[in-house]
C-alpha cells in the first residue's frame, strides 16, 4: 500500500511539473495572440494619478471633456455634512451666547441718562448705504441658508411644490441682490476705512473687555475695536462671498468644476460665519445697548451715549464743530 501511495504521489508530481513547464514556456502555436490593452489607458491608474480623467471631445462643449471627477464625492460630504455642522454650531452657538448674555447682563444702559442733546453720527448717505447692504444681506442670508438647511428643515413642513417655488424665488433674489450688496460692501469699505484702522486705543479697549463685562467704558474714537472687527468682517467676508458667488453665478468663466467646488466651499463657510457675526452686530445695535440703534436710525445719538461709548470721537467732534457752544465736560465726569 505504501509503495502504491508513493508511486502515485511521484506520478502526480511529475505531471504537475510538466504542466508548469508547458504553461511557463511560450507555446509557439498561440504566440501570435496580442493583447491590445497592454499599453491602453487604465481607469484606476488615471484616477490614482490625477483623481480625475480628462480627454478630448468632438462636440462643441469642450468642458465636457472631463470624463470622471470623483472629487464630487468630497464636495458632497462637505455640502451635506461638514457645512451643516459648521453652520449650525456657528449660528446656534452665537444665538445661545447672545441669549445667555442678554439674560445675565441685560441691555447696556445709558448710565448717565439722556442729556437731551444729540450729535450727528451717520449722514443720510452712510445710513442709506448701511441699510441697503443690510437689507440685501438679510435676504441673501435667508435664501442662502435655505439652500443648506431648507431641505431637512423647511421642505418636510411645506411640501415639495411650495418649497421648490420658494427656493426658486429665493435663488433669483440671491443672484440679483448680490449686485447691490457688493456695491454696498465696496462703499462701506471706502467710506469708513479712515475710522477703522486698528490703533493703540483698541488694545486697551479689548483688554478692558469693551465695557461689555462690568460697567467699564474704555475710550474709543469713532469706531471701537468691536466695530472695527465688524467692519473688517464685512469688508473681507463680503469681498470673499462676492468673489466666490460670482464665480458660481457665471460657471466656467473663471474656473472649471474643481474651482467651482472650492468656490462653493469658501462661499458657504464664510457666509455662515458672516451670518453668525452679524447676529452679534444686530444684537448690540438693537436690544443689546440703549441708544445705539438711533445712530443708524435717525443718524444722531445722544451726547451722553457718545461720551460713554466713544469719548475720543465726541471730543474730536466737539473740538471740530462747535468749540464755544458745547462746553464739553471732562470725560472723567461721565465715567
Amino acid at each position, binding site marked *: 500500500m505504501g509503495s502504491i501511495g508513493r508511486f502515485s504521489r511521484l506520478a502526480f508530481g511529475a505531471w504537475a511539473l510538466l504542466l508548469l513547464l508547458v504553461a511557463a514556456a511560450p507555446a509557439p502555436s498561440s504566440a501570435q495572440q496580442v493583447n491590445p490593452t497592454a499599453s491602453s489607458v487604465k*481607469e484606476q491608474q488615471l484616477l490614482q494619478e490625477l483623481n480625475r480623467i480628462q480627454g*478630448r471631445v468632438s462636440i462643441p462643449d469642450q468642458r465636457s471633456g472631463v470624463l*470622471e471627477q470623483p472629487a464630487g464625492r468630497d464636495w458632497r460630504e462637505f455640502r451635506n455634512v461638514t457645512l451643516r455642522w459648521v453652520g449650525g454650531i456657528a449660528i446656534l452657538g452665537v444665538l445661545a451666547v447672545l441669549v445667555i448674555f442678554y439674560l445675565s447682563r441685560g441691555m447696556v444702559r445709558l448710565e448717565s441718562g439722556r442729556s437731551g442733546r444729540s450729535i450727528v453720527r451717520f449722514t443720510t448717505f452712510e445710513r442709506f448705504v448701511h441699510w441697503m447692504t443690510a437689507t440685501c444681506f438679510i435676504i441673501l442670508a435667508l435664501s442662502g441658508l435655505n439652500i443648506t438647511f431648507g431641505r431637512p428643515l423647511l421642505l418636510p413642513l411645506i411640501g*415639495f411644490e411650495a418649497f421648490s417655488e420658494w427656493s426658486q424665488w429665493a*435663488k433669483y433674489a440671491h*443672484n440679483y441682490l448680490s449686485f447691490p450688496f457688493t456695491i454696498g460692501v465696496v462703499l462701506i469699505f471706502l467710506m469708513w476705512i479712515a475710522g477703522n484702522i486698528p490703533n493703540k486705543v483698541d488694545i486697551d479697549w479689548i483688554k478692558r473687555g469693551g465695557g461689555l463685562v462690568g460697567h467699564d467704558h474704555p475710550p474709543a474714537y469713532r469706531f471701537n475695536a468691536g466695530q472695527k472687527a465688524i467692519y473688517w468682517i464685512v469688508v473681507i467676508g463680503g469681498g470673499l462671498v462676492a468673489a466666490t458667488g460670482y464665480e458660481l453665478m457665471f460657471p466656467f468663466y473663471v474656473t472649471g468644476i474643481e474651482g467651482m467646488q472650492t468656490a462653493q466651499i469658501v462661499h458657504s463657510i464664510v457666509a455662515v460665519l458672516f451670518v453668525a457675526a452679524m447676529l452679534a452686530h444686530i444684537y448690540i445695535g438693537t436690544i443689546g445697548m440703549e441708544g445705539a440703534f438711533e445712530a443708524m436710525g435717525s443718524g444722531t445719538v445722544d451726547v451722553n451715549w457718545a461720551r460713554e461709548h466713544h469719548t475720543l470721537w465726541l471730543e474730536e467732534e466737539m473740538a471740530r464743530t462747535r468749540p464755544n457752544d458745547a462746553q464739553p465736560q471732562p470725560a472723567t465726569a461721565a465715567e
Partner: protein
Amino acid sequence: MARMKFLCDADRCIECNACVTACKNEHEVPWGINRRRVVTINDGKPGERSISMACMHCTDAPCAAVCPVNCFYTTADGVVLHSKDLCIGCGYCFYACPFGAPQYPKVGNFGSRGKMDKCTFCAGGPEADGSKEEYDKYGANRLAEGKLPLCAEMCSTKSLLAGDGEIIAQIYKERVMKRGYGSGAWGWKTAYRETIES
C-alpha cells in the same frame, strides 16, 4: 426588477458619436446640451481609448443627495430621474456628479442656469408615461414601451451596452473571456461601487 446600468466597452468604442447623435435626435435635446458625449483619452497616442459617457444612474446618487429641493428620484429599475418642475437650476448636482452628466440650457447666462437636463436612460420623467408633457420636458420614454436606450441600441460596434446590470456584465465578461483582454467597465467603481472581474 432589473437594475439598469450603462457599460461602455472602451476596447470596442470607435468614437463614431452615433450614440450622441441618436440621443440628441430621439429626445430632441436642445442645441448646446449633450446628454451623452464620447471622450477620447490619450488622443492619437498609443493606448488611446474612447469612452461614451452619460449619466450612469449611480447607486446612492450624489446629485440626489446634494439637491437643495430634493427633485431627484430613483425608479424601480434603478434609473435616476428628476423633476424639472421642482428643479431650481442651482447647479449643485453638477458640482457633485462624478460624470459631468447634468446640463443646463442657459449655462453662463446672467444668474440663471435654467432647468437641469440629463440622460433619463430613455425613461422620461415624473409625468404620465408617453405623454406630450413628458416628451417636451424629458424626451422619449422608451423604457415604458419596452425598449432599451437608443444610444446603446444604435451603437455600431456594440461597445455601449445598456440594460440590466447583471446581464450586460455577463455579456462583457464573455467578451473578455473570448478575446482575452478588456480594459474594464469605465465608471462602474465610481457609480456602482463595484467592478467587473475580467
